[in-house]
């Protein structure tokens, strides 16, 4: 079966004057149509870099230094910039965290939407406007005709994020990469946006990569999760399996450290220390200085991803070595 997106051993390096920094290393995952994948991790884990590298948006001094990105059978990371432009924003759309930053504040929503359509399709302004209206309705914007002539500042945060999603839908993409789409929004609005994204994946036949630090959000929306730490995927698999039965000590710590009703007022389980910066990645397993189960081998050898079950649950930890 061919997948919608295959990422194989992807490596992104930033060539700095002081030496090469590896932002993400050996990242692999697959995504099918209508499937939702959550990329989870703390800040600096390489979630966003992974998202950007799929559509080749890594800017200098960064570059993809290894691995392959295969989208609908085409290898993306070897395409020329011109060929890439026909994929990016067309077949693959991206949604960012802050809708106020993504929308141009001095253009009306109409002109921004028409511009996007006409950049990818050879249509008249009238047709583009009709398409824009249709997409605004799809994301449940009330009275879309009125909204079209407004400026971004006239809309609320949730409304703006819906408009950004509508713009992403304009070209009927088959993959959407959403980078922290609800982090800037309140919970009641977040619930609505997440609902909308999952619904669209079904109706529009799209795949979704949801990049977020919020495990709870990911667990509600996605089918698969990949947990990232210091530029590597350290655990991946079915969402239910990972949430109920995490194997990597970092994932376990992350889930335990979430405040919840069960342990109200008690001391939370905490992971000591903080994530290493890219300049001082520890030897061996990158998590070993913070790990409570650290073995002598952990600072010597980088653990490979061990297969835990046949449903694709994998974790990179020496403890799992049989």
């Amino acid at each position: 079966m061919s997948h919608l997106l295959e990422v194989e051993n992807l490596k992104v390096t930033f060539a700095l004057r002081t030496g090469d920094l590896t932002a993400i290393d050996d990242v692999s995952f697959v995504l099918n149509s209508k499937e939702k994948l959550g990329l989870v991790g703390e800040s600096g884990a390489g979630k966003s870099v992974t998202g950007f590298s799929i559509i080749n948006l890594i800017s200098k001094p960064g570059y993809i230094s290894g691995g392959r990105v295969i989208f609908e059978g085409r290898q993306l990371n070897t395409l020329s910039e011109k060929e890439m432009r026909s994929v990016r924003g067309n077949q693959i759309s991206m949604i960012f965290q802050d809708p106020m930053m993504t929308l141009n504040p001095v253009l009306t929503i109409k002109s921004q939407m028409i511009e996007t359509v006409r950049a990818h399709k050879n249509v008249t302004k009238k047709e583009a406007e009709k398409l824009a209206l249709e997409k605004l309705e799809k994301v449940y914007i009330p009275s879309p005709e009125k909204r079209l002539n407004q400026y971004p500042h006239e809309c609320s945060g949730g409304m703006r994020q819906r408009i950004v999603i509508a713009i992403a839908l304009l070209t009927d993409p088959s993959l959407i990469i959403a980078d922290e789409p609800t982090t800037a929004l309140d919970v009641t609005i977040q619930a609505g946006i997440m609902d909308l994204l999952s619904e669209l994946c079904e109706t529009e036949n799209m795949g979704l990569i949801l990049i977020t630090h919020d495990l709870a959000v990911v667990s509600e929306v996605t089918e698969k999760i990949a947990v990232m730490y210091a530029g590597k995927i350290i655990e991946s698999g079915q969402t239910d399996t990972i949430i109920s039965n995490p194997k990597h000590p970092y994932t376990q710590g992350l889930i335990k450290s979430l405040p919840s009703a069960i342990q109200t007022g008690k001391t939370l389980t905490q992971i000591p220390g903080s994530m290493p910066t890219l300049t001082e990645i520890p030897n061996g397993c990158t998590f070993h200085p913070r790990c409570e189960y650290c073995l002598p081998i952990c600072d010597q050898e980088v653990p490979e991803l061990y297969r835990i079950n046949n449903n694709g649950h994998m974790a990179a930890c020496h403890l799992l070595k049989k």
Partner: protein
Amino acid sequence: MNENSDLLTVNNLVKHFDISGGLLDQLKFEKKRLIRKRTVVQAVNDVSISIKQGETLGVVGESGCGKSTLARTVLGLYPPTKGSIYYGTDRIDDLNSRQMLPFRKKMQMIFQDPYASLNPRMTVTQTLEEPILFHNKNISSIEVKEISSEIMRQVGVDPKWADRYPHEFSGGQRQRISIARALTVDPEFIVADEPVSALDVSIQAQILNLMLEAQQQRGLTYMFITHDLSVVQHISTRVAVLYLGTLCEIGDSNKIFSSPRHPYTKALFSAIPKLGKKKKQYIKLKGEVPTPIDLPSGCVFQERCLYTEERCRVEIPKLIQRNSGTQVACHMVEEGKQ
């Protein structure tokens, strides 16, 4: 002060901000006549709360609901428009800055963004020693050093880093330093405005633990402001839910979380993402939060509420004590329809 006395009492607090600008900005033509119109943001309206010694009051609500304004007004950083604030038995909202000084030592604040709240040009020592020196004029420099390094140890920042600048620390470490700064003057009451919102999950747990630990050791009272409901549920003994500057519901944390009564609280809690729950049903609210410039008539929530009746449009609901001990401001709850 005994266990059950109120440490802080806020009575009918109102805080409005006039944003109408200069006289010329206020003038407008309406029906062919020149009129002067003021624009007022009604950030906090008629809020009464009390905080008991040793408890943690969590204040929750969505952005723009007046959480931070309430916090800052309580600390005297904004003068209230109406209402009164008592610290113990002393009224503090009408004091001048000199009279306020002894209270400032007892009330401290921790801010959201540890990148913005620490002076980048002051070392950790300078940051920690400044409040000690300011509030204790006759203290010897050796004692100051002792206090500051003791506090650094308590919050988990190695005292040998005392001469470093904030940029040399990670976000979590910085938040530890800003907690240390609040603790240096040995306060009784700490207002924490979104102290963990800017931090990663694993660091967030560390800071929450630190705050709980400090509370147990020092008998602190917290007013904990956040939009993150799971954090509130974890740390608070009581919870106050704000919507558009108005108190909807206040009561014991476990009672409110297990059986919320106000329609807004219900909707808000139903939207909390929960680990490992698929396809949950959440209450969808109509429309969006109105601006605090033109408040709706009657109940502030009536335009979005699923149960609005005629009375809600006309009459502002008052907080009414329920049997469970929580107070709810809703006509429908009062009439037993909800």
